């Protein structure tokens, strides 16, 4: 059974609008990363492009799955002088579950790809093992809170690995990628706290879109003539 977190009423629909920023930014980063790979032939940018492409797909699926929950499905059977109206959710719940599965899988795959990039993992057996594990995990988790918790752990792990890597080669420790991982950690942590009060869900979503908007601004700076 799927466990839902409900956003405050005033925030309904706004989360989907904010996620459009996330989707656009993800696809832009994916496009320019692929272009960079084409010019410089750095393979890691091909995979970076794929990771952000998955993020884009993930949030599209999330928007669709959120909208499906809100659709009331009424069916009507007409007799001669009266009609019976009833709610029919069967097919929509199936579709909602499919999109939720795609959302989980693609978000986790995107983070997994980033993990492989920053740890420079290139053994194909390890990669296949992790991907299979993720597919199974995405299938089994129907609890949104548990999924959130997994994202929190992964993003914290990614932030720490990136921080340590950059520190060891004396680079800027708080690079955009570190900020990105840190931002995902904070936003999903807040979304996790939505069990206490649904306001945290709105805060988490707002912070997530701010992080992606920040990445979008960086892209504008790069490509502004």
């Amino acid at each position, binding site marked *: 059974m799927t466990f839902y977190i409900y956003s405050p009423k005033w925030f309904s629909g706004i989360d989907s609008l904010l996620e459009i920023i996330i989707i656009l930014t993800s696809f832009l980063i994916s496009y320019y990363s692929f272009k*960079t790979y084409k010019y*410089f*032939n750095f393979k890691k940018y091909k995979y970076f492009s794929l990771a952000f492409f998955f993020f884009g797909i993930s949030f599209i699926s999330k928007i669709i799955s959120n909208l499906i929950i809100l659709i009331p499905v009424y069916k009507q059977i007409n007799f001669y002088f009266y009609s019976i109206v009833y709610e029919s959710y069967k097919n929509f719940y199936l579709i909602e579950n499919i999109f939720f599965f795609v959302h989980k899988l693609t978000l986790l795959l995107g983070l997994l790809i980033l993990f492989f990039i920053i740890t420079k993992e290139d053994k194909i057996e390890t990669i296949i093992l992790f991907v299979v594990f993720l597919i199974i995990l995405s299938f089994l988790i129907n609890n949104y809170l548990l999924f959130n918790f997994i994202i929190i752990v992964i993003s914290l792990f990614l932030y720490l690995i990136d921080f340590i890597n950059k520190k060891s080669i004396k680079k*800027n420790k708080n690079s*955009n*990628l570190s900020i990105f991982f840190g931002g995902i950690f904070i936003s999903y942590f807040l979304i996790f706290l939505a069990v206490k009060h649904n306001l945290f869900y709105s805060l988490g979503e707002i912070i997530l879109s701010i992080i992606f908007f920040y990445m979008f601004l960086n892209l504008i700076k*790069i490509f502004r*003539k």
Partner: protein
Amino acid sequence: MVFKRNKIEIIYDILNAIKEKNNKIKITHILFKANLSHIKLKEYLKDLEEKNLIEIYYEKKQKYFRLSELGEEYRLKLKQMKKFIETFEI
């Protein structure tokens, strides 16, 4: 730690060296800026000239290099990609 540049990075360094000298640079200056051997540089310059990215001209019997329009466009694209790499350091 020594980082080996790939072909495109070397081309960017050459094009940038020409641009920095306001499209009037001698081969010795490119050699210094691009950090290549003379033989390798000549190969690259020949390749860039064939692809119409650079032009050779003479002034007071001295040989100079400048970027063509295509070369300038290509340099800008490479510059953007390099900025992308610097922004998203992975």
